């Protein structure tokens, strides 16, 4: 039973669209609402879909070139003068390359720069390990003042982008390259700092983020037909964690799996483990990248190869319940 109050029925015709597409649309609408919204990119304007903002507001867009350190520090300066800068690149380069600049000139300096890392996860595909950013959640999550958002589909990315424009803190938005199932609808709520129960269950909770929320929901439907009741929670904001929603789900199910297209060390799996070990010690299994890099391949192949697909999630749930 999918919670259709919050999301679409999975058996209806599901549209697939890249999550980054939603970011591009969300940035245009944020730009229309708020004239202080500006954007800068490091030579990946089409890929990150910042191109939509650039065509709408050419004067408010700045091309920085292949210079990610400059990208975020220019962002710091724009924010210091009252702008709301969105700065984008591939996640492997930003925040991959410019972490210290983000730490000093954005987080410690407390400037509300919006860092947008596209092409995160192994689903980047054929480009291979260098471009498949897996450590960004961990890198951004440890920074004081930073907010970490991982939308599950393009529609949620659009809402998240608009919400970020109204948030006074530094934010990190994680996006994926591949077309992803659009499982939310216009009415699905999104608020920074909230996790959402997309499917109720009683035997086990899956905490998932990004495109793997969909895989988790599919897994939960399969398991239901076998008499296993799984709760699926979309942890769309990884920092700050929605402790209330997470703890209330776990106190019901007392068994947890986390699912992410990132390193489990320090990623969503790390975040949930930290919370539960302090507040509600619970057996937990973390699905994600197991302390290794990705490699070239087609996105769908890689998701299966690294055991991130719905079938792998089904197997993990069964193993854990036995």
């Amino acid at each position: 039973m999918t919670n259709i109050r919050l999301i679409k029925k999975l058996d209806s015709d599901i549209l697939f669209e890249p999550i980054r597409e939603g970011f591009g649309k969300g940035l245009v609408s944020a730009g229309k609402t708020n004239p202080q919204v500006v954007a800068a990119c490091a030579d990946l304007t089409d890929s990150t879909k910042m191109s939509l903002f650039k065509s709408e507001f050419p004067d408010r867009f700045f091309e920085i070139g292949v210079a990610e350190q400059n990208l975020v520090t220019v962002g710091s300066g724009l924010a210091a003068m009252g702008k709301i800068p969105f700065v984008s690149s591939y996640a492997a380069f930003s925040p991959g390359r410019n972490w210290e600049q983000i730490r000093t000139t954005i987080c410690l300096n407390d400037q509300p720069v919006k860092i947008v890392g596209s092409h995160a996860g192994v689903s980047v595909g054929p480009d291979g390990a260098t471009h498949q950013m897996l450590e960004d959640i961990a890198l951004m999550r440890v920074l004081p003042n930073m907010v970490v958002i991982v939308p599950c589909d393009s529609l949620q990315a659009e809402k998240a982008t608009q919400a970020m424009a109204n948030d006074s803190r530094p934010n990190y938005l994680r996006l994926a390259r591949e077309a992803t199932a659009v499982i939310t609808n216009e009415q699905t709520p999104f608020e920074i700092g909230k996790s959402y129960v997309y499917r109720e269950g009683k035997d086990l909770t899956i905490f998932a983020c990004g495109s793997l929320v969909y895989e988790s929901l599919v897994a939960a439907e399969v398991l239901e037909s076998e008499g296993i009741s799984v709760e699926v929670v979309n942890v769309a904001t990884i920092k700050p964690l929605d402790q209330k929603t997470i703890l209330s789900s776990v106190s019901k199910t007392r068994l947890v799996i986390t699912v992410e297209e990132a390193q489990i060390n320090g990623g969503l799996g790390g975040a949930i483990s930290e919370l539960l070990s302090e507040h509600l010690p619970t057996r937990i299994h973390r699905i994600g990248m197991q302390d290794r890099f990705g490699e070239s391949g087609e996105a769908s192949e890689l998701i299966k190869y690294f055991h991130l697909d719905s079938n792998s999630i089904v197997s993990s749930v069964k193993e854990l319940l036995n």
Partner: protein
Amino acid sequence: MSLYIENLKLKADAIRQDIIKMLEHAGSGHSAGPLGLADIFTALYFNILKHDPKKPDWNERDILLLSNGHCVPVRYATMAHAGYFDVKELLTLRQLGSRLQGHPERLRLPGLENTSGPLGCGLSQAAGMSLAMRLDKVKGRYIYVIMGDGETDEGNVWEAAMLASKYKLSNIIAILDRNNIQIDGPTEEVMPLENVVAKWQSFGWKVLETDGNNIEEVINALNFAKSIENSPVILIAHTIPGKGVDFMENDYHWHGTPPNAEQAKIALKELRTLRGKIRSESE
């Protein structure tokens, strides 16, 4: 020389004395850079900058970014003399709970424009500020960025140099503290920077040079820099590290070291008497 300039020189000397007292009291910190920059800071805060110590957030103020954050003692001392806070507070430098952090933190002290320490970021921040001002059609506000010469080893600096040139950010005036030393030794041994003038020119910047320890020359150069349109300007200010204290001048070992009590006493006497030129009342 005008009485006015003579007074500014005395002001710079007083700022140097406070730098020595602060560093000796803190027991750690950087000596050479702050002493070398005292004349430039005096010129900025007492002549060049449009600012109001009672309204640090005044929205028409000029911006002064200290990119080489380790030189912040000179900024604190100059700000105190300019009226941002009581000079007594200077002795809290680097202490727990102080607004005067070892490296500057914008949120701690009104009047600071940026948090810095890790090098190479100030010019990029200036570029962002300048782009924002252009969007808002702001006229007549300047952004001054003080950078160390060793700092320009950082690639981030040159990324910013290209951007400021691309967008012709002419309200940016960078001041390069060319004192020829960095922590590991002379700059030309650690990582040769020459030809500094040609490097910046080739990046599309207008380059000026001055004696950075001559207040009158610094003021003239900065006023000229303000008049330049269509490109960012960098003023290469040749300074003497440790300026004003004989045993510190031009010795790179003083880059990151404070004076002890005995050394501070000698240094203060030298500064008070302007190297024996005048009698000090406190002797």
